[in-house]
Each structure stands twice: as C-alpha cells, then as structure tokens.
C-alpha cells in the first residue's frame, strides 16, 4: 500500500504569550511513499517527524492537506479505520496483561463481520508472535521482559491485524547499543517478510541509513531531501543534510571560488568548473581526503587515532568552520605520517567535496574535472 502525502500541513497554536504565531510542525509535505518499502523519517528533535507519523496514523488531524493510502483518501478517517499498526516509542504494552493478551487485544476489538472466533484469534496471535520470535514468552507480563523483547511484543501487537501500513515511532531509542543493531536488522527482516509498507521515525542517521529503502530528511517541519540513503549521502541537497548524515560528520570549510578553482585559506585545492565566483561553504566528507606529500591542502596535525582498519587523522585548518577536521584514511597510509610531523598535506576526492551557498546553504553544483 503506497502512502501519499498531499500538501500536508500541521500547525499548533502557540502557547507563547509574546509570540502568537502558530507553530508549524509540518510544513507542506508533498511526497509519495512507494508500496512495500521501509521508509525512515529522519531529523533532529523537534523537526516534526513524530507529528508526521501521527498525521499518517490519524492521531492528529492535519491543518491542511490530505493523506492517501493507495487510492483511498484517509484524511478524515479516525485511526481505527485506517488499517494501521503503530508501535510507540515506549511500546505502550498494557502492563497488567500477558504477552498473549496484549497481542490478542486488537483482535478482540473486531466487531460485526470481522469478528473472529477464539481459535482464529489465538492462531493469528501465535503467527504474529512467531514472526517476531517471541512465541515462547506468551504467558509472561511485559514487566518480565527485556527491552528488546518488549519491542518485539509491541511489533507483534501492531502486526496482528495485518495493517496496511506499519508505523514505528523511534523504535530503537529505548534499547542499548547492542540490541539496537540486532533489532534494526530484525525490523528490516520483518518488513521484508510481511511486505507491509513501513514508516519509522528516528533521529539517528546511522539507523535510518542502514535499514531504510528510502529516507526523508527533515528539519524545522520542512522536508530537506528524499531519496535512497546512499543517494542522499552522496549528493546532499543542502548543508544541513550534508552535516546531518555521516559519522564522523562532514568537515565544513569557508572557501572561495575564483575562476573555477576552489580556494581554502589561499590553498587552491580543487578545480570546480561551473561554480560561480564568490564565497562558498565547502563540505568534505572524512573519507574524501587523500594523504599526499604534494597535497594541495595543508593542515596542522593534532593527532592520529588508530582504529584498526582505518586511521582517523585529526588536524586543524584556518579555513575550517570547526576547531578540528577529521579525515578517515586507510591504515596502510599510517607510515606516511612520521612520528614527529606537525603538518600533513591532503588531496581531495572531487566526488566527496560539496559546495554550498554560504547564506541559503543550498548546494552549488560543479562539474568534476578529471
């Protein structure tokens, strides 16, 4: 089931007495989520991603715009008639009911022609439990389960009615680091097995990139970029997206374009034909540096962190907007940095360098000269 958002806007009345202007949590969202895909809504806290999820679920009514599931306009439908499964950040499992009763709960609400017999309900509940591999914990209470197991129960409860769309609100944020890795693969697997269009909200870019078929990067209620994770990473639409994706984060420099050449603090570092002359913000991904004795960019070396497979070179440069810059380089290059070196020189990989307008922060495209 594809999900289509048409000019979706949500405004909340301001509670601030001085500033009466409405708070726009979701501003004119207009995009389509293809059928059977796993989509991550990604953005920092307060960017409107949970509100977007609530609008899709029907828990919030949009101020303007429409939500379609397939061809059906569900904008006016209450959540229970939309055919969604929703997993809450804190799971919201009923603490006084056993796992089995929790999973049965949505089925027991069915009325009229959808009503199921007790045996059918138990069968469906068992099926959902098996899917998330908690079929051995059916008689336990949520309080007796680990965080990861509770998460699975919540997913099973959301899936038991075979929803058209599955929504997950920060599904991994309550888990420890190890479980998080495990659970995100689990979510991917469950999504693939069921083929249900799944939308999840996260502020963790790594989480979103690793499992999503498509990510929607948001900031202050505005969509910044939509695309496949690798596409968005390789070609960020603006400085915010470039900064938000990637660990370690992108290095940002204040630069100058003169006659098709990018200058960082007087060093001519890259040919950027097609970019207009003037000041720019230049973002360089950590893996975009090449250690070269005759490199174009000279930096003060602050330290080298060895991580086994890679080394991380920490340096500083006058043009950098942050106190340090960080370059990830293959460990075999470690020998090229002598122990007492105070300077390093880099060449830049052209496809890892992005130029942005210093004020609008929009991307400035240039042709890569080989």
């Amino acid at each position, binding site marked *: 089931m594809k999900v289509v958002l048409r000019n979706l806007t949500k405004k909340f009345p301001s509670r601030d007495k001085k500033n009466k202007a409405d708070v726009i949590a979701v501003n004119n969202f207009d995009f389509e989520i293809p059928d059977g895909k796993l989509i991550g809504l990604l953005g920092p806290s307060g960017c409107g991603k949970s509100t977007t999820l609530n609008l899709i*679920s*029907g*828990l919030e009514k949009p101020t303007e715009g429409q939500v379609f599931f397939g061809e059906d306009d569900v904008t006016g439908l*209450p*959540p*229970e*008639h939309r055919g*969604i*499964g*929703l997993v*809450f950040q*804190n799971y*919201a499992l*009923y*603490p*006084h*009911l056993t796992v089995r009763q929790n999973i049965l*709960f*949505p089925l027991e*609400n*069915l009325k009229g022609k959808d009503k199921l017999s007790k045996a059918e309900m138990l069968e469906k509940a068992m099926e959902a439990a098996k899917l998330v591999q908690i079929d051995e914990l059916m008689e336990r209470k949520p309080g007796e389960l680990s965080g990861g197991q509770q998460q699975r129960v919540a997913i099973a*409860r959301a899936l038991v*009615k075979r929803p058209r769309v599955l929504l997950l609100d920060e599904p991994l944020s309550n888990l420890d680091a190890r479980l998080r890795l495990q659970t995100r693969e689990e979510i991917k697997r469950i999504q693939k097995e069921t083929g249900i269009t799944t939308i999840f909200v996260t502020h963790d870019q790594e989480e979103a990139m690793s499992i999503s078929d498509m990510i929607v990067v948001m900031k202050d209620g505005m969509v910044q970029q939509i695309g496949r994770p690798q596409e968005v990473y390789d070609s960020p639409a603006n400085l915010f997206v470039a900064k938000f994706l990637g660990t370690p984060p992108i290095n940002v420099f204040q630069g100058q374009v003169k006659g098709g050449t990018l200058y960082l603090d007087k060093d001519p570092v890259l040919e950027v034909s097609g970019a207009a002359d003037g000041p720019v913000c230049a973002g360089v991904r950590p893996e975009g540096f090449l250690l070269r004795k005759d490199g174009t960019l000279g930096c003060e070396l602050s330290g080298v962190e060895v991580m086994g497979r890679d080394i991380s070179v920490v340096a500083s440069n006058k043009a950098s907007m942050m106190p340090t810059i960080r370059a990830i380089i293959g460990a075999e290059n470690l020998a090229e940095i002598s122990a007492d070196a105070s300077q390093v020189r880099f060449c830049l990989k052209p496809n890892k360098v992005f130029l942005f307008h210093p004020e609008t922060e929009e991307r400035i495209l240039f042709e890569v000269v080989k």
Partner: protein
Amino acid sequence: MQKNIQKEKQSQSTGTTLSPNTSRKAGFFRCFSRCKGWLYLLPAMLFLGFFMVYPLIDVFVYSFEEGYNSASQTYFGTGTYNYSYVLHDPYFLQALKNTFLLVIITVPLSTGIALLISVGLNSIKPLRDFLQTVYFLPYVTNTLAVGLVFMILFKKTAYSDGLVNLLIQWFGGKSVDFISGPYWAKMFVLCFYTIWVVMPFKILILTSALASVNRDYYKAAQVDGTSKFRTFMRITLPMISPMIFYLVITGFIGAFKAYSDAVALFGTDLNAAGMNTIVGYVYDMLYGDSGGYPSYASAAAILLFAIVLTITCINLLISKKNVHY
C-alpha cells in the same frame, strides 16, 4: 611508593600497640552498628507501644473480666460473659445492623460515584480546576456547618418540613420525617450524609490516579479500535486498581468506625433514635447515660476489631487477583 609502605607499617604498629583497649571499643561499636536500625525505630516503637499496643491488649483483657469497675479496679471473675451479654443486647444488634447497612451501601456507592465524577473531570478541559475545587469543598467544610445544612435539607420543624420535603410535596408526594421518622428514611439520610462526606477525598485520589495513566495506552487502544467502554474496563480500571483498592479498604474501615456522622444528624441519644453504630455503642457503654460498663464496651470493641480484620483480610484476598501493581 616507599612512603606508602612506610605509612602502612606505621599504621600496623600503632594498631598492634593499641589493640587491648580498642578491641573493647570495637566490640561496642559493632554492637552499636548492629542495633542502629532498632535505635532509630525506638521513639516510634515506644510511642506506638504505649498508645496503641498496650491499650489494645488492655481492652482485650478487660473484655474477659466480668463486672470490671474502673474506679476500684476490681472484677468478679473471668469468662466470656461480656461477649454473651453484648451479643444478646438488642441495642448492640441494632448497632451492628446499622453499621453493616451503612458499610454495604456507602462504600460501593461512594467509590463508584467518585469514580464516575473523576472520569468526567478527567475528560473535560474547561472548568476542570474549578469543578475539582467544588468537589473538594466538603472535605474542608466544618462538620457542624455540614450538619446545619443537612438539617435545613431534611429536618422537620414547627415552621418548615425541610427543603427535601418541600420538593417531595411539590412533586405531589407525602412528606417524610427524615430525622425522627421511619427507619429507612433515617438510614437514607445517614447514608447520603456519609457518601457526601467521604466523596471529596476519593475524587481527589482518583482524579490524580487517572491523570497519571500514560496517554500512550489510550492512543494505542484508539489505534486498535477499542470502544470507550472496553478501554475503561480493560485499561483504565486495571491501571488505577491499586488506588481503588486503597479507597475500598480505607472506606470499609472508616464506615465500620462511623459514629460522629450519626451524632451530627440524630443527636447523642442514638439508641433511642435506633440509629446507633458499633462505635456509638462502645461510647455509650463507657460514658453514655446508661454507661459505666468498660467490660461490655471492651467486648464490643473487640468484636468490631474482629469484624474489621475479617473484612480487610477478605479484601486483601480478592485484591490479589484483581489489583495490578
């Protein structure tokens, strides 16, 4: 490093030289730290012992001493005569009946109505604070003032039949003497009064309990298409069940100990009015016009204690199944 070793040596040597003296001291400290917990508890235990445990035991003893005279501190003999007397006393049986009726009527009703009002309060936004204050007012209102209000409502005087009777007459009914008329009318007033008095506290407790239920449970239930009634029965009630249980237990105990409410409505001669309660009977046996029988009073008090204990135990047993902590 060397300094450290030196220090250690020093401390060792001082330790050995002082050992005979310190061992006694250490023993004292060990004893002290072992008893420390009890020491902290001592003031409270002394207080409770003097004013709670000792009187309890004393009452128990009195209840078996026949013809005890508190002035001369003498009695004829020991036995169960006091109990037999009390259990055959029509006034006590009347008091027992009154108390049981009061408990059975007021506890479920007051808790149920309080729950309804709390749910209502919890579901509205405008005027919630105002209404909460209104519902809490009886709790802070003086008993005598409340008694006066009830008199205006129910009492028949030479000048008026009371407000409620005026209403009854207005609807074409026959006026009833609620204060000194038929038994059911008096019982009705007593129950009405009791419910009205205990309600504010219950509403206060229940509204805060309802407010503390995580909203996400309701959202989850809504997404699953749960009906309002089922949400209330399967989610809200279990979630606030510990609070309801607390209110039921304290409600039972409070209603069994009812006395002042009856006095406020029917005056001090409750036996004559036929509206006595067990606690009222105990009081009358001690200090009333027909009083001066501490043995009977003790026996009645022990009987009340046994009843309350039994009911509370039953409550606890039931709660094990239905209360979710």
